[in-house]
């Protein structure tokens, strides 16, 4: 991982704009801690370049510079920066989206809220065996493969 703690902190401030709260769904920061984000990034270098480019972009972004740095911009300004990054550097932006979505939707508390049950032995997750009666119509079709 080539991203510093400060850079992680800068990116983490955008998490709740990416996934805000909605009805019973929590915002991203409620289920993903900053430490977790850091730990995840330390497990792979897949996102290093993209996220570093985003931080550089944020630091150079005019509003952030005028305000005195990315840490002091308000929520509306952060949202504008996200929109700007998405349009200007979409590939780098997608790395941030991938990390936030992956971490958010891998949390058990989110799985419960969206009713995602991977329990293998649950009877609710059982499929009925194949029933050949469904072949009734298609079996009447004349073979149409070319005899060559």
């Amino acid at each position: 991982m080539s991203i510093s703690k400060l850079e992680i902190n800068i990116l983490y401030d955008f998490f709740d704009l990416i996934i805000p709260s909605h009805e019973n769904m929590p915002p991203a920061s409620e289920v993903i801690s900053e430490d977790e984000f850091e730990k995840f990034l330390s497990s792979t270098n897949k996102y290093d370049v993209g996220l570093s480019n985003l931080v550089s972009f944020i630091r150079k972004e005019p509003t952030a510079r005028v305000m005195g740095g990315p840490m002091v911009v308000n929520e509306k300004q952060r949202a504008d920066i996200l929109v700007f990054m998405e349009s200007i550097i979409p590939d780098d932006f997608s790395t941030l989206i991938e990390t936030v979505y992956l971490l958010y939707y891998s949390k058990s508390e989110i799985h419960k809220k969206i009713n995602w049950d991977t329990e293998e032995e649950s009877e609710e997750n059982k499929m009925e065996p194949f029933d050949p009666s469904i072949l009734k119509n298609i079996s009447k079709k004349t073979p149409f493969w070319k005899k060559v």
Partner: protein
Amino acid sequence: MPKNLPFVDIIIVGSGASGGACAWKLSESGAKVVLLEQGNWFDQNDYPGDSNDWEIVSKNSFSFNPNIRKLDSDYKILDENSDIHPLMYNAVGGSTHHWTAHTPRFHPSDFRVKTLDGVADDWPISYWDLEEYYDLNDVMMGCSGINGDPANPPRSPRPMPPLPLGKDGERIAQAADRLGWHWWPSDSYQASEDYKGRNGWNNKGTYASKKKWKSIASTDHTYITPAIQNGLEVRTNCAVQNVSVDNNGNLTGVIYVDSKGTQYFQEAGKVILACNGIGTPRILLNSKSKKFPNGLANSSGLVGKNLMYHPYASATGLFNENDLNYTLGPLANIIIVQEFYETDPKRDFLRGYSFQMNRSHGPAHTALGSGSGGVSLPWGKGHHDEFSKRFKKYLGLAIISEDLPELHNRVEIDENLKDKNDIPLPKIFYKTSQNTRKLLDHGLKSAEKLLREAGSYEVIKQPLIETAGWHLMGTAKMGVDPNTSVVNPECQTHDVENLYIIDGSVFTTSAAVNPTPTIQAIALRTADKILKG
């Protein structure tokens, strides 16, 4: 200088679909066969199912893409000039550790495209030459399916019944019935019941289920383990640098490097390459000598040329009933539709395509675009609504197109960029053709029609799935004429008598179905031909 190792009868390089099958067949003869694999043994308990973070793992260390995965066993593929990213897995068993196990056969017509449609070349062998080997492979790998498909010739009884279609599969099947279109339950090398020591899938859970993963055939279990009992020797973590010849151009063996960096020369009577449509031309192009300055077996100049992938497009249908759960069951080996498989003079393209039905993916994959044409769901205020609209409620039809061979689609090597074993990296050049584009566009329209008939209220189209380079074919073409092909009908190279190629490289054309059963049938047939002399 490499360390010399005692002579063996046969070396097989690569232990995936073809290498495993060939090794088993040859091992029955009592010959001294050594299987070299650049990866390691794979523990099925390492499949990333069941845990909450399986989607993270599948996007990283268990990605299909070696450039993302970056395991010690992987080599980088320079694919910046390719419309499609090539995929593979390197371990004993190869990519059969990382596949849906959808296993249709080629049609008889697929071997005769020049005669039928005036395009590309006919294969020098026919469907009927491969039929007995398809049958044998279905038994060895364990095929779940059912006979009677009107789009294909009759075939031997399937060893196991089909996998469940599910309510979603039945929905698509009934819609196809109403349109009068072909459909059939997919042949699959996922076991629907206990089979040859492998537990059948218990019909419970999702794509992520570890039991589902373990019910899928991989050649380390189906072929290589029994071959070891016959005397096969497997050497893992061995990366082949080149195939060696003497001054007269006669094959002498291979040079490889093990995980400690030690270089060996393994003398052999025969060498069989089974490293896929990229790995095999990479070795051949790296095997330059005074006699073969352009790479081994390359007098035709066709090694690495004619790369075919099977370009995929996808149509995703959204359904709006409240109680849907279209995540249950395997992701893709469900139903195949071959209504548009053959050339139709009324269309503006040659050859055709199959539909392969897909299910809803997990939550993170859904958020990242698997139900929205490969485009991540919007962030911000609308995110949760878009997610609820899709999660568990979408079905896809993947359009798998016949990819016609073109010389400019190719694998080269970059002499300046090398892997940790000092082996030059493969560089890919690939552009989808106009014919493919027209074919995929037709497929998208047809797929929308079927999904709407099935009740979908919205259909999202993905014109080309760039991340779908599963099938690597054509880069060491089979043919009769040494000037226009690399191997003969027995998969022996025209230029070097004791050198054979058995992976997808040898495909003359690609057909419009998943290639693994055909690759394995060719590998078994080649082994048979070698044994019969």
